[in-house]
């Protein structure tokens, strides 16, 4: 795919550097949460995006403050991409008085100032995304809404319905499919008829697919489709192939994948993070500088986590409050 010249206005190296730093930050972020799960500080089921960072890192380039993002059970990176405060986010995930005062936790993150939410019900986000887009349409904004799904969610009727509704009503939704090839333990070949990209065809929706290991390809696809949604005020679909490095959830024994598949995906050749690193080195950036960037990312995450853990525990008197709003 041709590189988006408009987007490379600053040059490839600065762009790649920004993407790399973002991806390292995202990986460290998820690793910090993995530790929290392992230690019991987080006591519920945890779903991390380690290995899938390229999508969110690239998405961040194209999102604007008035855009909306509705994500899934694997939402942390999309939240970061949309600008949700990392300390608030970590505090909520670590069950402190955080983003949602300890009421929602990892699966139900809401940041209305950033029009961000996620849900643990697979497929339920797509209909909700059409609602954000409806508001954008009615207000005559050029804002758009991103509805994140996995490949598994594409079989949920809710997603089909949302795609139809968005097409019929002219709603600015990008249906963004992170295709990691698995619905927990079930590989796509066993659950999904046909190719995911063909599911946009019945709706006449602009659509494209790319390899998420290649951030430039991913950027060209997402940039182009988001621009289309923004200008046409009509939905589009992007399918980005990624790989989930860890099990579906933390603690998943993850024995259902073919021998060697995961190791290959995590290798220097296929890990999207290591590939960006290699691309950067190829542009002439020095090893030392790359290490420094990675250190900054690691330090940032450590600092955020420390701040998050300083947050008080949620006020227990609030547990039975807040079912209804207002007087």
């Amino acid at each position: 795919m041709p590189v988006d010249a408009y987007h490379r206005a600053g040059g490839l190296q600065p762009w790649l550097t920004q993407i790399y730093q973002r991806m390292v930050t995202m990986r460290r972020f998820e690793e910090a949460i993995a530790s929290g799960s392992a230690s019991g500080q987080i006591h519920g089921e945890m779903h991390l995006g380690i290995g899938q960072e390229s999508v969110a890192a690239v998405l961040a380039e194209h999102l604007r403050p008035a855009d909306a993002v509705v994500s899934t059970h694997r939402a942390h990176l999309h939240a970061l991409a949309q600008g949700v405060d990392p300390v608030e986010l970590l505090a909520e995930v670590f069950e402190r008085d955080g983003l949602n005062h300890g009421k929602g936790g990892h699966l139900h993150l809401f940041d209305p100032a950033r029009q961000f939410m996620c849900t643990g019900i697979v497929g339920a986000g797509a209909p909700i995304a059409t609602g954000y887009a409806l508001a954008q349409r009615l207000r005559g904004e050029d804002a758009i809404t991103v509805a994140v799904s996995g490949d598994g969610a594409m079989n949920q009727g809710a997603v089909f319905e949302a795609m139809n509704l968005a097409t019929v009503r002219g709603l600015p939704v990008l249906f963004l499919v992170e295709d990691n090839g698995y619905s927990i333990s079930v590989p796509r070949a066993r659950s999904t008829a046909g190719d995911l990209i063909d599911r946009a065809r019945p709706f006449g929706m602009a659509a494209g697919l790319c390899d998420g290991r290649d951030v430039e390809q991913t950027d060209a696809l997402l940039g182009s489709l988001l621009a289309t949604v923004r200008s046409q005020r009509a939905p589009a679909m992007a399918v980005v192939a990624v790989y989930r490095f860890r099990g579906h959830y933390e603690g998943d024994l993850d024995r259902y994948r073919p021998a060697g598949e995961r190791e290959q995906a995590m290798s220097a050749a296929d890990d999207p993070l290591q590939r960006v690193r290699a691309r950067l080195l190829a542009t002439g950036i020095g090893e030392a500088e790359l290490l420094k960037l990675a250190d900054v990312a690691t330090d940032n995450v450590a600092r955020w986590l420390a701040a998050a853990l300083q947050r008080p525990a949620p006020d227990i008197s609030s547990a039975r409050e807040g079912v209804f709003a207002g007087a």
Partner: protein
Amino acid sequence: MTTDTRTGSHLVASVLRQELARDPSVILFGEDVARLGGVFGATRQLRREFGDERVFDTPVSETAFVGMAVGAAQAGLRPIVELMFVDFAGVCFDQLANQLAKNHYMAGGRVRLPVVVRAAAGSIGSAAQHSQVLGATFAHFPGLKVIFPGSHGDLQRLLVTAIRDDNPVIFLEHKQLLKARVDGLPLNDARPAGAAVEPEPFGRLRQVRRGSDLTIVTAGWMVQESLTAADALGLRGISAAVADIRTLVPLDRDGLAEVAGQARHLLVVDEDYTSYGMAAEVVCSIAERLGPSGPRMARVGLDVPLPASRPLEDEVLPGSRMITDAAIALVGG
């Protein structure tokens, strides 16, 4: 008696018009609401007046458009979404029970969901999948207000309240109330045509008839049927009070305890399924408050899917005759 040929559906449409005119963030959508004006006529003329951007028809896809109401509300709009029949709630149950009901709480209060889900409820001769009430099912989920008016006036006033409430409201419009003429009901309390409709607070039951032998507690169309039964009981020397719950959530538990103290017998009439339902909640609430000194209580209702043919439906569906018989059995026994 003055003639007023308006039906409940006209009254609903006039309230929707009032609120759409009052607040530009109010929008309305659902199946057949715009072009047709609703299968019961409850949204007639609204698209013509407010345009296709604010009043529109959706595809047959409850999950998508109820979910759209969730998102639109979180983004600052005030959607009124129609379920053509409340029975269709099963189609979009996740969006109602997991999203609409819970997102405000889970967000730590940071989002509000001012959504009204209007749904036609109750019997109309169309059998088990088109005749349900399901109020108790929704009431069971913390986070949903459940409104079930029993009169034309309350249909109007409580709808205004629902639209202005910042919370999700399931608003059950009984089909018999929608169909009935204003001048054709035992209880006629509709606002005059053209008059503004003011909101009525949720959480207050309404005593619609006084009595000293028996209190009938009920909601929805059964309010009208209970008034007819109370007249028949009066002729037999049984003085029956009738109390209209009106709002399942918030439930007026204080009001229930108060009306329960009026007489030594109390009958709860519920068109929704009897077991694990509204009637059980009422009986339980009164028993908890009043204990052994409270009234002797019984429930009138049904625990079968509603059958189709008239004689079978008449046999199981509560109505003034069944209520009268149950009252006599309770008081006389």
